[in-house]
């Protein structure tokens, strides 16, 4: 025991020291990606937009369906606010006014479950031993992702028969915490996406 203890302490110190920072805040897991065209797209040339005012999600078959998320209105409101701040004008009738851009938002959440087994060692008067059955540790967390596309209706790909997005935001993070904090982080992620895309500015 006397010989083992210093080794255990040293090993613990070294292993703990290998990763001295631990994630401490839920916000630390947030990430925002924005994808855009390097050339061929004049973002300043777009003047008007239409906003699909429903948040979508994927069903079990992978089809897009309207989401019943409580955060849908916040996503739509924050997206509209940023597009207007970028100088784009929202059309009143998306079908009659032929908007330059169409904004669509999709979101999903996923539950991750980690199950791990380990054999803790116990000390006793007859030496070290470990239990026959492993100790099971179960942990779970929810992650969420939000995707926003800005689609140019005039860019139609005849091969896929789909219109093309000229800008995409992908935000991901832990879907944990109070509803108020989640909504704040969602709004911050959308703000961040526009902040790191200064080319989204109407001339």
């Amino acid at each position, binding site marked *: 025991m006397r010989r083992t203890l210093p080794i255990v302490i040293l090993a613990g110190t070294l292993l703990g*020291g*290998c990763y001295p920072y631990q*994630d401490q805040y839920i916000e*630390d897991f947030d990430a925002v990606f*924005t994808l855009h065209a390097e050339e061929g797209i004049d973002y300043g040339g777009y003047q008007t937009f239409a906003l699909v005012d429903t948040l979508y999600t994927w069903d079990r078959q992978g089809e897009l369906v309207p989401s019943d998320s409580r955060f849908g209105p916040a996503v739509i409101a924050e997206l509209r606010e940023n597009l207007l701040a970028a100088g784009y004008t929202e059309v009143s009738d998306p079908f009659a006014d032929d908007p330059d851009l169409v904004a669509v938002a999709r979101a999903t959440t996923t539950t991750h479950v980690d199950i791990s087994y380990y054999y803790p060692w116990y000390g006793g008067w007859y030496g070290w031993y470990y239990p026959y059955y492993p100790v099971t540790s179960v942990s779970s967390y929810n992650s969420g992702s939000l995707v926003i596309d800005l689609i140019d209706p005039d860019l139609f790909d005849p091969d896929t028969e789909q219109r093309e997005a000229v800008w995409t935001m992908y935000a991901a993070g832990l879907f944990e915490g109070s509803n108020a904090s989640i909504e704040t982080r969602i709004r911050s992620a959308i703000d961040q996406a526009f902040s790191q895309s200064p080319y989204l500015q109407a001339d």
Partner: protein
Amino acid sequence: MKRSILVVLVLLASVTGLRAQVGGAWSFNYAMAQPLGSTADFTENMSFLGFVVEGRKFIPGEPLTVGGELGWQTFYQRVEGQVVSRPGVDVWGTQYRYINTFAGLFNLKYHLRPERMVVPYAGIGLGPGYVYQRLDFGLWTLSDDSWRFVVRPDAGVLIQFPGSNMGANLGVNYHHFSKTKSYDETTFVGFHVGLSSFF
């Protein structure tokens, strides 16, 4: 600063007395390090997490020792709110960056006046090293580990405590882990302070 340290070492070496010739020493050192070059581009913070265990043995009649050592140093940095841009994509998030280095080196050291209680030395260590580099970003982790070849010149001073076979070991070194296909060389200047046991 460097000049002051040199002056102190020279004074110590000149005023201290003689001692019986020792066969060698074991040293257990706490290590700090400042990353350099591309290593500093990844983690620029000074590392206060390191440890080196070292043994050296005198070649009879020579001021030279041969020996070996095992060393570990961890660099880390939290980078908040940085946008990383690549063609067609910009990424924002909090990053946790880690570099763990391990080195197992053979060393050769020259000692100035090894019969004194205070013995300046300079040497070089060569051998295999292992570098584990990791970037935690959002929900993702990118990591890379690789074996490298390490060149590590160093200089320092052994100070034997009066009437004891124990002493102190102070030194400075430069670590160079060779580059790989994926990563540039890993380099840092290290400082160590520790206890030595003479035999």
